[in-house]
């Protein structure tokens, strides 16, 4: 395994670094498999359940019988006899008032779950590994901004603490107190019936203290809200990954920390304290995707990146789109400008094509009218007008001056 195992310094109860340091146990380099943790946690959580059921007599303690058809009532069994409200009421059905429920709960429901040993251990190992990654601990919600180092290892003197006051002092000195303050702030009344079932307050989880030998640690720390205590030999996933989420803030004692290698093994050495266990093999030896992608072996096989993708072009109509037209025919812009100017001029002086057509129409109408009144043959006149019209049309195509002459 190419995992680097740096030295982790040990801190004393005053929060200062003692000279000692321990090599990081290989567990902290194990793969972090949140899916396995989630699954195992889910299964493990069921193991503390107590059986509950409904009385099997409930709703069955009647001798009700259905009245059958023909009585203008629904066919459910009804209570016999008379003289009381209960007589004639429906019984036995789950829909009936005072009837038994649908599928009455039985005690022999499968409350507990068996989880494979390997899975259990894998989950635990992942949870421990995740507790050594500061970002995951922060993301879990712990305030570790003032903690000197993650994983946090304290000297074995902690195990000999007897007073809670001293324990609090230690937590303050190592910068873990802000996490406890968070716990204090999060205390609130439970929602739901648990209130009346001796589970009134709920609060966040704070740090876990993992020790090797209990010379008073447990008693010293247990009254501090949020703190959990665990022995290294008996680590509990429900405490290391509360809620199924990895990254609880863990405080190790030195001997506990040193025991981890013996407990979980390194890849080159099997575990000494567990039967036939070695750390799980990761799927990727190098999980740093960023570095992998920049590596020569990959880069040399890639094609060049397409920085500028040629996308589908919408075809535009040059006849409607002036910029496209002038790209195809630069003279078109000139033409268009000229006609525009002409139109502007013509609008004022009546020399545009439309105005000319309009003027011509007026003239034909006027002359036709006079001819009619005077009684001349109109057919000839129209022919003349047509000839005249053609001449005028040809001249309008060229210069303005010519058309004015003809009209």
């Amino acid at each position, binding site marked *: 395994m190419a995992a680097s195992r740096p030295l982790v310094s040990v801190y004393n109860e005053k929060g200062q670094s003692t000279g000692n340091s321990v090599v990081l146990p290989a567990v902290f380099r194990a*793969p972090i498999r*949140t899916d396995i943790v989630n699954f195992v946690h889910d299964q493990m959580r069921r193991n503390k359940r107590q059986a509950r059921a409904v009385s099997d007599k409930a709703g069955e303690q009647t001798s009700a019988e259905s009245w059958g058809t023909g009585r203008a009532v629904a066919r459910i069994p009804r209570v016999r006899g008379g003289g009381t409200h209960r007589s004639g009421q429906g019984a036995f059905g789950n829909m009936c008032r005072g009837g038994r429920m649908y599928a009455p709960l039985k005690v022999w429901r499968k409350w507990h779950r068996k989880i494979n040993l390997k899975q259990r251990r894998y989950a635990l190992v992942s949870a421990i590994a995740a507790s*050594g990654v500061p970002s*995951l601990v922060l*993301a879990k919600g712990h305030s570790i901004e003032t903690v000197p180092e993650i994983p946090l290892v304290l000297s074995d003197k902690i195990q000999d603490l007897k007073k809670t006051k001293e324990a609090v002092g230690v937590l303050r000195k190592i910068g873990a107190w802000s996490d406890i303050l968070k716990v204090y702030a999060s205390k609130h009344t439970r929602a739901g019936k648990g209130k009346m079932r001796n589970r009134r307050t709920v609060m966040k989880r704070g740090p876990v203290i993992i020790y090797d030998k209990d010379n008073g640690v447990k008693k010293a720390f247990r009254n501090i809200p949020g703190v959990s205590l665990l022995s290294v030999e008996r680590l509990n996933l429900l405490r290391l990954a509360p809620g199924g989420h990895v*990254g609880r803030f863990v405080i190790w004692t030195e001997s506990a920390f040193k025991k981890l290698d013996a407990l979980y093994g390194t890849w080159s050495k099997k575990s000494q304290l567990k039967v036939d266990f070695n750390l799980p093999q990761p799927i990727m030896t190098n999980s*740093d995707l960023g570095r992998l992608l920049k590596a020569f072996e990959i880069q040399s096989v890639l094609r060049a990146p397409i920085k500028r993708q040629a996308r589908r072009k919408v075809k535009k109509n040059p006849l409607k789109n002036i910029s496209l037209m002038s790209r195809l025919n630069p003279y078109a812009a000139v033409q268009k400008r000229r006609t525009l100017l002409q139109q502007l001029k013509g609008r004022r002086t009546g020399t545009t094509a439309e105005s000319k057509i309009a003027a011509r129409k007026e003239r034909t109408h006027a002359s036709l009218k006079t001819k009619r009144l005077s009684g001349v043959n109109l057919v000839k006149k129209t022919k003349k007008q047509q000839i005249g019209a053609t001449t005028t049309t040809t001249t309008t195509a060229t210069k303005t001056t010519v058309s004015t002459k003809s009209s």
Partner: protein
Amino acid sequence: MARGRFDQASSHVQWMVIRNTSSFLRKRKLGTLTTEPNNLRNRNTFRSNGLIHPKVVGVETVKDGKGVLFTTGCVKNIKKPAKRFRKVKLTKDSRRTLTSIRRTIRKQRYRKDLKMAALRRASALLRGQRLALTTTPPSTTTKTSSKRSGKNTTTTTSS
């Protein structure tokens, strides 16, 4: 980043854990945001995440005062939360604040992809502080404006 340091917990692996499960996540109809400390845009993306990367840039307001706190992550001390961040108080005028942020990022080649985000966030925060001064009511305005992400503040506080 030191080779092999986070063999199984590289920033990519951490991202896969954090991306959907984090105490800082805020999922709402208008999108997913995060409230983690050194996220310049408060966006839940790999690049802008403030926890995962060894090199990280953060800009926050100075509490009860003028100026901006410019944070950079120290690569050496990823495992030492107490020493992880280098915080610099920038309390001069905005021009100087912005240039010092810009230069630090540019000259050190430190997360160049975050340069504009840092500048925008800084200017939005400074703007909030200026506006808080003009509208006389006490300092609560500075605090709320610092909580919102930079881009939002620039659009909403257009008084």
